[in-house]
């Protein structure tokens, strides 16, 4: 009887693991990572709203130290391999956006590269 229960438990666990993987959730290269400005799950849902609000405050009122800055997102989350948040299937922004089939317009104008690395390269 014990063996049967153990077997069932193993089957159940492996089945649930399979279920998660079969969704094909993107595995992202989160760069340096670290403590985000909000809970990751909240950010997944709401990052576009906070970025939109802050962008207007920055462009029109010159408030540049807001909490939700696109540059700060990139600073932590650009890949450590190519310093970018787009361009590859596992890039921090592009990975999820490909999965959700949502076009990102940000990087047609904004730089997708980590600023501190660019500054270092220029000063060399």
């Amino acid at each position, binding site marked *: 009887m014990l063996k049967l229960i153990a077997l069932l438990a193993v089957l159940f666990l492996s089945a649930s693991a399979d279920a998660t993987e079969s969704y094909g959730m993107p595995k992202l290269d989160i760069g340096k990572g670290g403590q985000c400005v909000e809970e990751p799950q909240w950010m997944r849902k709401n990052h576009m709203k906070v970025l939109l609000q802050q*962008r207007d*405050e920055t*462009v*029109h*009122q*010159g*408030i*540049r*130290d*807001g909490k939700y800055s696109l*540059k700060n997102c*990139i600073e932590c989350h650009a890949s450590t391999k190519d310093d970018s948040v787009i361009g590859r299937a596992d890039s921090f922004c592009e990975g999820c956006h490909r999965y959700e089939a949502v076009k990102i317009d940000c990087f*047609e*104008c*904004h*730089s997708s*590269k980590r*600023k501190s690395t*660019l500054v270092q390269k220029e000063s060399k």
Partner: protein
Amino acid sequence: MSDTDIQRRQFLKTSVGAAAVAIAPGMLLFDMAHGKSEAVSSKVRWGMLIDTANCADGCNDCVNACNKENGLSGGLSPTDSQWIRKVELKDMRSGRTLALPMMCQHCEEPPCVDVCPTAASFKRADGIVLVDKHLCIGCRYCMMACPYKARSFVHEPLHDQKPDVPRGKGTVESCTMCVHRVDQGRQPACAEACPNKSILFGNLNDPESEISKKIRTVASTQIRADLGLNTGIRYQGI
């Protein structure tokens, strides 16, 4: 209250003090690096005074500094963006020549803002005229309205823009008076680069600022003053 309680309170007081001391310099550094958290106000009006007598013929340092700071190609074809250009003038009768840098004049009454159908072209409270590229639809009406030919349209897709200066195809752009630097308390790239210090940047609303004092004492003119736009850029020695 027991002895332990009092000791605990004292410990808490001192640790809070220590934490404040430890955090304060960090906060200051953060402010310096990222700019102010207050909205810009109309108490300030940014402007420039350009001394054309010191502006050397053939010197292009301000233009090059602008191109480097803002990630412009520096090309001169009709489809390349030019935010600042050197203009050379010659009086045919006397033969006197004159060189000066020409860019967005940051008008108090900007025609580009009047004509913009989407309110993308706007004037910030501190007098800097900008394009909100999130709103710009690329109609180029502002380019036609500008008497100074200061604006450019981005015709081709761009790559490797500067993190501080987003630019993109299908939008109009012009001199931003290096707004990203000004918000950090620095001066525009052209003013910093001029080898003869002939571009003086400052607050026109502050009577004690260097630029206000100089405007009070030397003769300066606005270009096309007849249009009554009250430009933020003034020229000396034209």
